[in-house]
């Protein structure tokens, strides 16, 4: 008999609360979101020119953030994405693990499901270990966060620990409200670039 895949009952954190706490001390950090609910989670903390909302290119968030991190070495660059999005670009962890950008941190909101399409299970529900993959790919600092105490303990590392830093936060599938985030990529990207460079062009 095939094993039934069920979600551990122990998951208590809600993604919106996690993102609110993480971004509460963002400082001048740049934030790149993955496709899906991560866009709304980040926008719910206040729209910001330093947010690059990627509402497409599934699997691309970590490498977009990597390119930003190389170009902005003095600035912390934070990826907020889901497990499905990260899995779609899983090779990026190997590339980033080799390059070791000190100012890049990736925070994965792992609800073990494709939340935008009806909560079909992702590979993490079947036990695929994203933290293990990151560690094996060369991320020297990683964390698996399963409760609010763990999140508090990780807060300093997310912003200050020499990267690349990688954390998985296990979250419920419950989502927050959808926000009226601009879906106009031209607008969002130029606003973001101007905030990074201090130049209009």
């Amino acid at each position, binding site marked *: 008999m095939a094993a039934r895949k069920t979600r551990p009952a122990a998951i208590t954190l809600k993604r919106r609360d996690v993102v609110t706490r993480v971004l509460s001390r963002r400082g001048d950090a740049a934030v790149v979101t993955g496709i899906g609910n991560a866009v709304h989670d980040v926008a719910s903390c206040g729209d910001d020119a330093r947010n690059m909302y990627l509402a*497409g290119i599934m*699997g691309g968030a970590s490498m977009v953030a990597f*390119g930003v991190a190389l170009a902005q070495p003095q600035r912390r660059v934070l990826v907020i994405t889901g497990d499905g999005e990260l899995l779609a670009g899983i090779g990026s962890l190997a590339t980033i693990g080799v390059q070791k950008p000190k100012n890049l941190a990736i925070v994965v909101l792992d609800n073990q499901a494709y939340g935008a399409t009806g909560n079909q299970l992702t590979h993490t529900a079947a036990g695929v270990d994203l933290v293990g993959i990151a560690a094996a790919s060369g991320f020297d600092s990683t964390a698996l966060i399963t409760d609010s105490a763990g999140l508090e303990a990780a807060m300093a590392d997310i912003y200050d620990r020499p990267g690349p830093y990688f954390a998985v936060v296990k979250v419920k599938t419950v989502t927050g409200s959808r926000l009226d985030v601009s879906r106009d990529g*031209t607008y969002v990207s130029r606003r973001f*670039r101007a905030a990074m460079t201090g130049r209009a062009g």
Partner: protein
Amino acid sequence: MTMAKAKARHWSHEVYSVLKRADVRQVAYVPDGGLAGLIDLCNADKKMRSVVLTTEEEGIAQMAGAWLGGQRGVFLTQSGGVGNCINMLSIMQECRIPLLAMVSMRGQWGEAFPWQVPMGQATAAALEAAGVIVQPVDRAEEVAETVEAAARLAYDGLRAVAVIVSQRITKSGERG
């Protein structure tokens, strides 16, 4: 002297100079024989950050991030990797982010290895379908000027541009 003139430097040196003048700082690539000379020159340059990718689409995302962060990059790939990039190229079109790409062809001029032909024959059409301006070059002495023009169209004209380097130049794949 005539011998020295006849033995002109490999085109990759001139392309490298073009990339330096264009202030290209990030180089993303999947290793490729046709572009190996250029890749080696970029790798040896400490002011360029050369990044080996696991798959080509990572490079498209990285190039978008480079521009978003205020740097210029170049993406180097073989034609066989172009198909991997298609969805990721959405960000160039939707955000109108510049891309400078160089694609070395296989499956095109005198290819002797059959598995290279399907993607090679689809390369230009696939790029154009994804909104990339394709600029082919089939003479070694014209590669550098084509890259220079493409860099201007990309970074000043704010467009995604791919220079397609003919197999006639690289001589790849003659023995399959």
